């Protein structure tokens, strides 16, 4: 069955992963800009990263019949220095016309600091100015609930964004309701040690329904699984969910949200 992994960091994965994902049915990925595991020493480092996301990586994916799309931003882990962050933000508009760019992401908060929040608000404003979709990272572990609340409030304060054009990612049982209740899309990330498992994501679907909800692997350089989405499909199937319900979460919903960008064609 075809599926889309709408959040995965393929720059951190091997070409073998593309091959295995294609064999499992992956037809498209979207890759948000994120933290490399170390802080870049200059804005130029981001310029090269954005070139990788908009030029090299789509060609590598195409070798396996997978469409590659991306999101651009400065991530919250490198947003504590607003001066540095603003230099990176200035680089983004020149890349927004690239054929695989879907919007601004993954912006958000990491430690819920004032500077992170200020940079988040500036990138929300950038998305509004250029009429871009937004993909939001919510913080890890004990910081998630507070960070999710602060993020939703920041988007509301901006006042220029339709919640239906914003995906709030990494939701769990204590944040999914507030995200869906306020009209946003919600992403469940499947990690072995944090965020959701395939089983818990199926639990959330059963309790909250499948409207405005998707799953992703967020595969990166840490402990993660680029086949987590098809494993969730298997989990739903063994519980007795029908194929249409499985396709809604793993193919139809990503298509519906992402197709709000005219560049998305998968």
């Amino acid at each position, binding site marked *: 069955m075809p599926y889309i992994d709408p959040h995965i960091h393929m720059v951190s994965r091997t070409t073998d992963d593309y091959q295995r994902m294609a064999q499992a049915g992956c037809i498209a990925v979207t890759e948000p800009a994120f933290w490399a595991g170390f802080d870049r020493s200059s804005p130029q480092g981001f310029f090269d990263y954005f070139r990788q996301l908009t030029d090299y990586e789509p060609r590598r994916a195409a070798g396996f019949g997978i469409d590659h799309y991306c999101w651009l931003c400065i991530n919250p882990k490198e947003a504590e220095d607003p001066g540095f962050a603003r230099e990176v933000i200035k680089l983004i508009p020149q890349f927004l016309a690239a054929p695989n760019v879907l919007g601004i992401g993954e912006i958000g908060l*990491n*430690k819920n600091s004032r500077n992170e929040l200020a940079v988040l608000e500036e990138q929300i404003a950038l998305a509004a100015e250029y009429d871009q979709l937004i993909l939001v990272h919510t913080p890890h572990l*004990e910081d998630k609930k*507070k960070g999710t609340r602060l993020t939703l409030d920041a988007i509301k304060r901006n006042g220029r964004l339709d919640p239906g054009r914003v995906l709030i990612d990494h939701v769990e049982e204590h944040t999914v309701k507030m995200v869906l209740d306020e009209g946003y899309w919600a992403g469940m990330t499947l990690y072995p040690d944090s965020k959701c498992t395939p089983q818990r994501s199926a639990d959330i679907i059963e309790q909250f329904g499948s409207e405005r909800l998707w799953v992703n692997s967020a595969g990166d350089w840490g402990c993660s699984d680029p086949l987590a989405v098809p494993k969730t499909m298997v989990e739903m199937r063994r519980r007795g969910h029908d194929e249409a319900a499985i396709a809604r979460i793993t193919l139809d919903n990503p298509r519906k949200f992402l197709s709000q960008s005219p560049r998305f064609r998968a």
Partner: protein
Amino acid sequence: MNATSNETSPTCPLSRGRTMNLYFMEHRAKLLDIAAFLDRLDRSQPSFPEPLDDVRLAAIHDALAILGDGQPERVRRILELLSDPTLEPAPKAGEKGALGVWPQRQPASASSTSSSSTSR
């Protein structure tokens, strides 16, 4: 102890019997992993600061109480038990990583029911 709440409306397509058969062994193993972790802490060498006073251990004990209370939404309640409940932005980001438990959390069960050396 009630294992499940009778008040929860059925949303999972599986019957309770089928759910038990499909998932029991996997979660039996996870339960034993928690027990083995607590035993390992008991057997570990003393250190300073003493991890037996660690906010993370207290949170595990409080989370275990939620598992046994027979009330629904255990996952949400445990996640909230581990979370920062404040809403004021932090003055600075500090370390990039997260601990897994809000460091200022006060244990809900100051008089622990456990008599092992891993209790607070």
